């Protein structure tokens, strides 16, 4: 998400880093790069202009230029300005009355129907009984699409196959919902161009008759400079309550995401991050700003982990870990849990300092690697899984490799990797979440310098470096001890 903007911004900031004191000219040069990064990311020209004006005013000031680390200060200012640009967001759906209505609108192909399904799933998960309304009578088979989604989600869909007037369909849907036990309506309207007077009038009419509690504009994240034109037009026709940004899982540069709030005053409430129906997330400007600046988004990661990990299983593992037990079976379970979070590179991007790693592993198919690892573990006996480095000899290794369809050296690599991880896991068992993240981060950075080693076993420090005299003293002590032991065995032997 937003990789290229993120990269361009960091290189702009990097150009200022390590220069010590900055002059105004240096700073302006760096700011020029920031502006270019924004424009290349499709941020609306006028938004970028205002943004740069605010940024420049602060960055050129004495306080920043004379500070000890101006580039850090600049990052802070950009971060804050990005948050101001996209926020604040109120995520509540404001569902009032017996039968609140949510309405989705947008251009063709922005993802309204899919989002309708996702939103239905989301509110259903919060204990509501939504009914989806197929008010898109324009596009062939749009109704079928919503019906299929409804079936997949187990949600009722209100459909009139031969209807021509979406207003009537919506009104009939209200009656149908009242007759059933549904307590929330989500209207999927037809995609339309904002310059199409007739269809925009139709939309206002639906808005007028239905009085929806919330109207959301669905915007494709890949939209260019035109995003603000259409958002403005829709907002004028309907008074939007929020924006849902879709297709953010690609390499969209996110300019639309940055511009929409500034132009319409309507914040992004949700973002679609995948084709599957659970891929709708709340939008947090502060976290997004952090991600854009490569600061990571630990909060979202932790939230997701809490939602998706099997809590019971986690507790069990935690207990075993605190006893110092960590076997290949646990490792396998851990891999399974991580998989639930989504693609590995998505997770990496959320850990501070790890976004750079993504680029490196970009071509490596991490998922495939994980499947291979699981295959190797599955080919081991319970004893081998408990104690791989001690039990697995050459012949066992050959057997396991044959069973998993890999080369014997890959088994060896797994065992080595496991040793490293087990070590880390045992150390982490006593830590809080923050320290754990730090450890993972250190691991990642170690890996970046030395990608071949992956999870190498970490050397443990003594915590203290001895002076030569102390070392000599210790040597003396050891020798004395040795002599004492020798003496004892001798006296024992005499008896």
């Amino acid at each position, binding site marked *: 998400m937003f990789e290229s903007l993120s990269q361009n911004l960091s290189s702009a900031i990097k150009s200022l880093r390590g220069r010590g004191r900055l002059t105004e000219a240096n700073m302006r040069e760096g700011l020029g790069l920031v502006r270019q990064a924004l*424009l290349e990311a499709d941020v609306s020209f006028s938004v970028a202009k205002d943004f740069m004006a605010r940024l420049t005013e602060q960055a050129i000031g004495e306080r920043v230029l004379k500070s000890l680390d101006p580039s850090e200060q600049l990052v802070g200012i950009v971060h804050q300005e990005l948050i101001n640009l996209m926020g604040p967001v109120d995520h509540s759906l404001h569902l009032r009355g017996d039968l609140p209505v949510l309405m989705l609108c947008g251009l063709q192909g922005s993802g309204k129907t899919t989002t309708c399904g996702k939103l239905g799933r989301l509110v259903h998960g919060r204990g509501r009984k939504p009914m989806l309304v197929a008010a898109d009578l324009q596009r*062939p088979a749009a109704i079928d699409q919503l019906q299929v*989604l409804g079936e997949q989600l187990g949600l009722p869909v209100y459909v009139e196959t031969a209807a021509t007037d979406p207003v009537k369909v919506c009104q009939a849907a209200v009656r149908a919902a009242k007759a059933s036990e549904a307590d929330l309506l989500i209207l999927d309207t037809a995609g339309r*161009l904002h310059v199409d007077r007739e269809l925009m009038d139709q939309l206002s009419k639906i808005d007028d008759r239905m009085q929806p509690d919330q109207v959301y504009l669905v915007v494709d994240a890949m939209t260019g400079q035109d995003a603000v034109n259409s958002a403005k037009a829709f907002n004028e026709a309907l008074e939007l309550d929020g924006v849902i940004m879709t297709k953010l899982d690609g390499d969209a540069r996110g300019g639309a995401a940055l511009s929409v709030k500034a132009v319409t005053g309507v914040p992004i409430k949700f973002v679609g991050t995948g*084709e599957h129906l659970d891929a709708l997330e709340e939008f947090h400007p502060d976290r997004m700003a952090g991600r854009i600046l490569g600061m990571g988004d630990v909060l979202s990661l932790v939230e997701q982990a809490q939602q998706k990990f099997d809590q019971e299983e986690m507790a069990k593992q935690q207990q075993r870990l605190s006893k110092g037990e960590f076997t290949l079976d646990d490792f396998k379970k851990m891999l399974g849990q991580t998989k639930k979070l989504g693609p590995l590179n998505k997770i990496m991007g959320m850990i501070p300092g790890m976004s750079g790693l993504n680029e490196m592993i970009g071509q490596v198919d991490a998922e495939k690697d994980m499947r291979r690892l699981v295959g190797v573990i599955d080919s081991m006996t319970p004893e081998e899984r408990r104690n791989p480095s001690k039990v697995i000899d050459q012949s066992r290794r050959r057997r396991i490799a044959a069973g998993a369809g890999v080369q014997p050296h890959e088994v060896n690599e797994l065992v080595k990797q496991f040793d490293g991880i087990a070590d880390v896991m045992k150390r982490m068992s006593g830590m809080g979440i923050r320290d754990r993240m730090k450890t993972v981060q250190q691991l990642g950075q170690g890996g970046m310098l030395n990608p071949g080693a992956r999870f190498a076993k970490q050397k443990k420090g003594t915590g203290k470096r001895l002076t030569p005299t102390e070392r000599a003293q210790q040597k003396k002590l050891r020798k004395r001890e040795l002599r004492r032991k020798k003496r004892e065995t001798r006296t024992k032997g005499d008896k």
Partner: protein
Amino acid sequence: MGILDKFKQGLSKTKQLLNTDIRDLFKDEGRLVDEAFLDELFETLVKTDMGVQAAQETVDDIRTGFRARVVRMEDVLQRIKEKLKSLLAQPAAPIDFAESGPTVIMVAGVNGCGKTTSIAKLGQMFISDGKKVVLGAADTFRAAAVEQLTIWADRLQTPIVTGPRGSDPASVAHRTVARALETGADVCIVDTAGRLQTQQGLMQQLTKIHRVLGKQVPDAPHEVLLVLDATTGQNGISQARHFTDAVQCTGIILAKLDGTAKGGVVVAIRQQVGLPVKYIGVGEKAEDLALFEPVSFVDALFEDLGKSL
């Protein structure tokens, strides 16, 4: 007024004069090309989505060519337009038809860019040219995508090959070509599921469909058209690049050009990936497909430029 002020006033006139190019001394209309002018020009160019790089190059070109001169907007525009028109120039015949047997056309693009509608429009165009068309609904992923194309096939009264939802799209593609061979069709158009260009697995699937299409007809697919939403910004470049890497696209259908978006990103795509635009979509009806004409496209790109400057 003191003598000094008068002197100053006189000087400021000289200053203006000194900043004026000798060629423009006797012009009484037009504007001075200064940084403010160039900034405005840059803004208008960026707003067409043609990309920062291309916009900067154009502005630099104007800067060296016209700096400190007083110009009429038309002259500057003319120069920019000429450059873009020569960049976008391409052979007139958009589709490379097979010498014998069916011409196989594969259509790909990201989610919601307008693939299925564009296929219907292509079908309509070929049919009205008197050609026999077979459609293949190889989008077996999205809910009701097959139904959508089937409805279009009914409207166009043309045969369609479908597969159950979730089945292998390559097999549908294969059967579509087989059907075209059987029935002696002239053109066979294969729809594919929308996918973001960053989804490696799905892009590999697309490569497979491409490969399978060539199994029964040599040199097939003859055309691989990338459908691009005209509202797309700089991400269009990444789309063009990744799809071309996966399935060797031969051209672009620029859909949804009937809104306010100008689709200027195709300029950047042409510059960086070399992919030409073949058709433009200008409405929701089956006949709303037009041949791409660089001249009128470039003119439309700067339609409101004259007004704003």
